[in-house]
């Protein structure tokens, strides 16, 4: 189907698209912080590209959101307050060291691989088509970060301990990735959006296996319950301030 049946469904789909777009945008911004600072030139290029790709994917979801609600992507990105962002806490954490960045990107890429594959089955054609487009490009990210997971996890004592420290820091945030927004179930029933809990369980099995192969062990604790997407850590506000600074200096400027 190319249009949604009613206003309530439209709002629910739009709400989920905003979450997906915000995840891509904030992760992109964090990765862009490595530009000019990555440990080696090849990775500087790689992560600048990954950041740019994620920005492109964010724009696809924001544009789809615009087609449903009329909300302008530039206004959404540059003129929302931090508390109005709906991204995962995992993607807003500071970039940390190289191990942290690589591990976070690996966790997000593996989630996206399954999520996008499921989104391709959406009965809402624009979502299915966008997922197919994004999914092709994402293959490059996952191959890259999976290689780094193995390289650092099974590398030296120091690289392994840094990866383990990154995992200890990231794992408490992992279950938020499959937490569904209110009334999301309706979209699953109508085959418009995938069952996030099912994808989450498949994802966790996969990453536990691959982490173990890389000599890493998830800590035995997590958040007791996943926070809602309007709850953020103290790290989001400075990120948003920096990202919006130029746009807010001259609000009517053209680019």
């Amino acid at each position, binding site marked *: 189907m190319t249009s949604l049946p009613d206003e309530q469904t439209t709002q629910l789909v739009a709400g989920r698209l905003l979450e997906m777009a915000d995840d891509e945008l904030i992760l992109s911004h964090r990765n862009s912080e490595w530009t000019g600072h990555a440990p080696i030139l*090849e990775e500087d290029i790689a992560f600048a*590209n990954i950041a740019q790709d994620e920005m492109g994917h964010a724009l696809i979801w924001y544009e789809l959101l615009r087609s449903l609600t009329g909300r302008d992507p530039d206004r959404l990105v540059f003129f929302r307050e931090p508390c109005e962002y709906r991204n995962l806490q995992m993607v807003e954490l500071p970039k940390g060291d190289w191990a942290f960045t690589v591990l976070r990107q690996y966790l997000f890429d593996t989630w996206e691989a399954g999520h996008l594959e499921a989104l391709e089955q959406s009965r809402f054609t624009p979502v299915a088509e966008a997922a197919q487009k994004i999914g092709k490009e994402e*293959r*490059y990210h996952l191959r890259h970060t999976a290689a780094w997971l193995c390289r650092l996890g099974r590398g030296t004592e120091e690289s392994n301990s840094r990866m383990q420290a990154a995992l200890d820091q990231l794992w408490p945030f992992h279950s938020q990735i499959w937490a569904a927004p209110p009334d999301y179930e309706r979209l699953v029933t109508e085959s418009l959006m995938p069952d996030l809990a099912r994808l989450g369980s498949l994802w966790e099995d996969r990453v536990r296996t691959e982490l173990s192969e890389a000599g890493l062990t998830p800590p035995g604790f997590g958040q007791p319950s996943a926070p809602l997407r309007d709850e953020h850590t103290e790290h989001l506000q400075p990120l948003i301030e920096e990202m919006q600074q130029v746009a807010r200096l001259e609000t009517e400027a053209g680019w």
Partner: protein
Amino acid sequence: MSEITENEVWEALGSITDPEIPVISIVELGVVRTVRVDAERTVVEITPTFSACPAYQAMAGSVERKLREMGATGVEVRTVLHPPWSTDWLSDEAREKLRRFGLAVPDRHQGNLEGAIEAGQAACPYCGSSNTRQTNPFGCTPCRAMGFCQDCRQPFEQLKPL
């Protein structure tokens, strides 16, 4: 009644080049998908190579300007994402132009994208040797990777298979 035909639009769009690869047109690149002309409207559908292609907005702007220059009525330039762009769409002629420009193009993967990414290699654009290796799966733009020819000892750029 518009006096411009669809063929004339295709021909005009064939004069617009990719700003970052000025040797082939956006028609040869596969960015222009459909052209529809009727009495009231001129609608062109275009698609990005990679989603984050920095040249895409420039291409969309060039299409719109070109249509207006031609005196087209009811100009509309739309983005479509399906079918997703593929390096397989590049014709042999386009591949040859890119090679002469110094940009290697991977062989057609015919749907086996994972296999093409795994192989990660393209023939050297300078000497034609297949004895090359990929030095970085990422490059100066989202659509490019970097390779090295082990015969003529030249580094080169290639399009990423997609």
